[in-house]
């Protein structure tokens, strides 16, 4: 393939993603009043009173309702809820209007009855709830959103005092972010330093990563993170930036070192597979170019679809949530078991055969090579620090 053709391909990929995103933005334009009338078949004649405040009528009784919505940052972006209150200050309906969170997490939270907790309750006697373990961020966004929207109606219609928005993070964000920075710094230290027990140190770092980034905090980045990043939903606020930070650092370290530092030294899921492979001492799979191209096409197609439908969580097909948080669909459960068993026969089967991170790193490498000046072609495969060393030697000479 000529350099020109390579450059066209490199540019076409972000162009198709941008087109999908623009198409999605045009598609999602909806009208809030019509959406609120869909909370229940009993709600009719919705009309706007104020910016976020609507009045409606119950079909069954003819009573007046006040409905309002509020958004709170959740895992994948803003989560919007609505609350409908009657003239006796009683909450009649609660609803989740929009969310970019993983569907299975939301289903778990709703399955616990989080929306029902508030129905039938007076807005001046609201229960104060904390998050649900295992889906803390989503459940906190829902409870805070309902509390804020109910208070909005209370202030506007019943003269209740305004309650300030609760902005404290639902999970220990600072600890997570510091942990990620520390792990990447430790990985870079291992990459650059010739240490006597490098293998053992790498194994120790991987184990540490499994325990902390995997089981404790669940900070792995996924396709969902990639879609959130590209679509810009994170600009509207996220409850947790840890997966985003992890992804950004994985890309930055790849661009700087030209090595997959994240995959080799950090990824908890890769570490689990590698650990299982050590038991049997198995080798990597037989890989063919067509496998890699199918895998890359799959990643591209999923990104286009998720950007078009504006649903980052739908893009996630990695079994991380099932492996470390035990949340996910039956298919992901099957996939996780398959990978665990296969890891005993083939080294890192998921990483080597179908992990989307490999396709993303391939694209970055391909793009760099396509645009690398001819004169530096011989050093384009060297890590950045090695390139600088070469230049320093030439200048000194």
């Amino acid at each position: 393939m000529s350099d020109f053709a390579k450059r066209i391909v490199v540019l076409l990929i972000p162009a198709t993603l941008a087109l999908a995103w623009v198409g999605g933005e045009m598609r999602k334009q909806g009208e809030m009043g019509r959406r609120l009338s869909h909370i229940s078949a009993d709600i009719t004649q919705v009309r706007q009173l104020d910016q976020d405040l609507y009045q409606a009528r119950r079909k069954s009784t003819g009573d007046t309702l006040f409905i309002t919505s509020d958004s709170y940052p959740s895992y994948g972006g803003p989560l919007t809820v609505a609350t409908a209150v009657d003239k006796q200050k009683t909450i009649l309906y609660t609803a989740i209007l929009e969310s970019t969170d993983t569907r299975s997490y939301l289903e778990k939270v709703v399955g616990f009855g989080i929306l029902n907790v508030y129905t039938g309750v007076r807005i001046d006697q609201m229960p104060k709830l904390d998050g649900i373990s295992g889906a803390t961020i989503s459940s906190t966004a829902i409870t805070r959103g309902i509390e804020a929207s109910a208070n909005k109606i209370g202030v506007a219609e019943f003269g209740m005092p305004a309650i300030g928005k609760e902005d404290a993070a639902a999970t220990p964000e600072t600890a997570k972010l510091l942990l990620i920075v520390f792990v990447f710094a430790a990985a870079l230290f291992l990459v650059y330093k010739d240490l006597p027990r490098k293998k053992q140190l790498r194994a120790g770092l991987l184990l540490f990563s499994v325990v902390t980034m995997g089981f404790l905090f669940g900070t792995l980045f996924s396709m969902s993170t990639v879609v959130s990043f590209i679509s810009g939903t994170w600009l509207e606020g996220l409850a947790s930036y840890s997966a985003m930070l992890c992804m950004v650092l994985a890309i930055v370290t790849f661009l700087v070192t030209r090595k997959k530092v994240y995959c080799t030294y950090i990824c908890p899921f890769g570490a689990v597979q590698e650990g299982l492979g050590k038991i049997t001492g198995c080798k990597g799979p037989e890989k063919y170019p067509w496998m890699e191209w199918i895998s890359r096409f799959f990643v591209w197609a999923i990104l286009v679809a998720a950007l078009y439908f504006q649903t980052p969580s739908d893009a996630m097909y990695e079994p991380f949530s099932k492996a470390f948080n035990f949340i996910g669909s039956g298919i992901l459960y099957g996939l996780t078991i398959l990978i665990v068993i296969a890891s005993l026969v083939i080294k890192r089967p998921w990483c080597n055969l179908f992990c989307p991170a490999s396709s993303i790193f391939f694209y970055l490498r391909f793009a760099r090579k396509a645009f690398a000046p001819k004169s530096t072609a011989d050093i384009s495969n060297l890590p950045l620090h090695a390139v600088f060393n070469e230049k320093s030697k030439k200048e000194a000479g």
Partner: protein
Amino acid sequence: MKKALSILLFWTFVVLCSAETIPKFVASAQKDKDSVLFSAGVKSITAPVNGMKRGDNQDYKSLLKGFKADGA
């Protein structure tokens, strides 16, 4: 043997990951853009519209047992 296993494993990944993602996108394509994701109402209220999901109606005090509740 290893070659066959790698190919089999690869196609199983393709099938499972497609089965995980494609139905979600199909559902997004079919979903009315004005519909809501989940809703709940007090007992005796009629069914929601547009085929959305609704949480089961339960006594909220019993539900609070599942939460770390304060002031309920």
